[in-house]
């Protein structure tokens, strides 16, 4: 047995009310695909449709050819995992207990955690660098540790597709880099929404741009992140230059002449 099996994702004409109006995107097996776009452009709505907390009102989400909408919640949860933006977990749950809950889709609801489940939880915690904190209570974790614990929970789910909504929110730069680097080592197909264009450029194989509920463009970071696109979608002046050491496209913003107003390039 090798690492997590990877499967292709194909989203066709996905819609939800007026927040998402026919989004298309694909992710090849093992690919890390980023979603960028301004606030309210539909990133979270799209992701929630994919991991199943919002029903799509139109379109299809195919994972290896299977329409996710046709799967029972539990069957879907065996294939798609997410790191949600939930409130803090219960204060009397240990980190190991939190992570072991990721085994739930693989168990009947009345089954408890076996030694194997707990060993998997411990292994996942090791993998995200939290091996020493398994017995700590959840509220004693820092923000970055909590995010990594939730990544560990997604790991024990054994998913084909990992969905992350702003996984770097509230993290310092070190932890932002850590979490994204971790996601890339997992080998699963990953779909993540990111605000930071430079992080998206550095960690995603391909990027899709959402605007007003539609995917306006997609491609490699170099293809997508151009001054023209950034100006059109965000209304911000920017230069894009290759990173001096990695060659990754790097966005350098120009402040607006008058704060809060769009620049003349619009």
């Amino acid at each position: 047995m090798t690492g997590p099996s990877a499967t292709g994702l194909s989203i066709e004409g996905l819609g939800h009310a007026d927040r998402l109006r026919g989004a298309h995107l694909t992710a090849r097996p093992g690919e890390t695909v980023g979603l960028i776009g301004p606030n309210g452009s539909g990133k979270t709505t799209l992701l929630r449709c994919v991991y199943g907390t919002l029903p799509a009102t139109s379109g299809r989400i195919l994972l290896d050819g299977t329409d996710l909408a046709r799967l029972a919640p539990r069957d879907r949860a065996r294939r798609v995992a997410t790191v949600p933006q939930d409130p803090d977990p219960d204060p009397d749950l240990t980190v190991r207990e939190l992570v072991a809950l990721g085994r739930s889709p693989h168990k009947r609801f009345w089954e408890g955690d076996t030694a194997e489940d707990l060993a998997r939880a411990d292994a996942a915690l090791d993998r995200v660098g939290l091996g020493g904190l398994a017995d700590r209570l959840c509220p004693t974790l820092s923000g970055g540790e909590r995010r990594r614990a939730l990544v560990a929970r997604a790991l024990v789910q054994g998913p084909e597709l990992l969905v992350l909504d702003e996984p770097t929110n509230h993290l310092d730069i070190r932890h932002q880099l850590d979490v994204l680097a971790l996601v890339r080592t997992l080998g699963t197909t990953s779909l993540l929404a990111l605000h930071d264009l430079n992080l998206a450029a550095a960690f995603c194989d391909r990027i899709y741009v959402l605007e007003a509920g539609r995917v306006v463009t997609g491609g490699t970071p170099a293809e997508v992140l151009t001054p023209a696109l950034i100006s059109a979608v965000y209304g911000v002046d920017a230069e894009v230059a290759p990173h001096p050491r990695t060659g990754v496209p790097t966005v350098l913003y120009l402040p607006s002449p008058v704060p809060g107003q769009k620049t003349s390039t619009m």
Partner: protein
Amino acid sequence: MTAPTQGPASGPPPTHEPASARESAPARGPASAPPPAHEPAPAREPAPAQESAPVREPAAAGPARRRAVAGRLRYVLVVGGLLVALGAAVVGSLALGSVRVPPGDVLAALTGRAAPSPYRTIVLDVRLPRVLLGAVVGAGLAVVGAVLQALVRNRLADPFLLGISSGASTGAVLVLVLGVGGGLTTTLALPAGALAGSLLALALVYGLARRGGAMTGPRLVLAGVAVSYILSALTTLLLVTAGRPEHFQEALYWSLGGLGSARWDTLALPAAVLLLGTGVLLALARPLDLLLTGDEGATALGLDTGRFRAAVFVLASLVTAVMVAASGAVGFVGLMAPHAARLAVGAPHRRLLPVAALGGAVALVAADLGARTLAAPQDIPVGVLTALTGGPLFLWLMRRRPEGAAL
């Protein structure tokens, strides 16, 4: 149970650091614990999985197994301690009261070896049903409290938050005011009215919380509290317009709770409901645990949170309704016992529910002993005592919570 010495039998075997690295991790402290070293910049190259996926070393299972054994031992000790406490509280309650029965005679009566005597009648026919009802109601309210706290993700939830006890009061008072049942009023018609009132409240809250979408925690609380206020107002209106002062006395009993009406023939229903309800809720321990981490995550882990919450709300309310019909609304047990149990064995419901149940039983049996004896021959409503002792205990527990932890 299989030993976790090997990679899991199915699915991806998670890679991990060797055991030695894991052992040293706690020394690093939370803030500085670095994840495995990596180079974020050249992330363009696909980096599928880690190069080496070592088979879990047998040594790595040692600490995990030791912790599991320690956790189980703690659980067994807590349950054992509570069982002993419950036994002591029961025997004490059977022995003490207006007539003191020597402990030897109590045990003789219980084991059926005593010759018919006044003691035997007092122990078996007067005190035992009352003590057992106390244990049943205490356990039931504690289990329901623990479950509702998970259901609405709020530690202040108790069995009466969601309107059930208000419905019971309204039903009971309606029976009083209308004079239904004649001579049977106190023994059968009142509990029946209380049960009917609870079920009506349940239906109202369910309908309001479910209407137009999934049943979320906040919706459930809002619907429950609103129905609760409306029914309480209705109860007061009934009492005032009926103009019969003696009804106030009865109404007070329902709102404070008491075990004085316990009899063998009214014990069976609460006992059966307690066993059945607790059994089902124990089987639902895993989905209840999922709710502790939030609806979004629970849904993503395959739980239909709206339907599950609705179903468990109905079950918990039915248990509450039967308990309240038997004893009135005994406060604080359903709030306190789950908190104390969490401190002892943690939040997972498989351990929490049995411990909360035993704790609730001990608490209510002990409180009722006080209610019978402290101001004898006057019976103090047992709810007064649970609130008087539970309130300070609650505050003490609250102060003990770790820094930054929510209730």
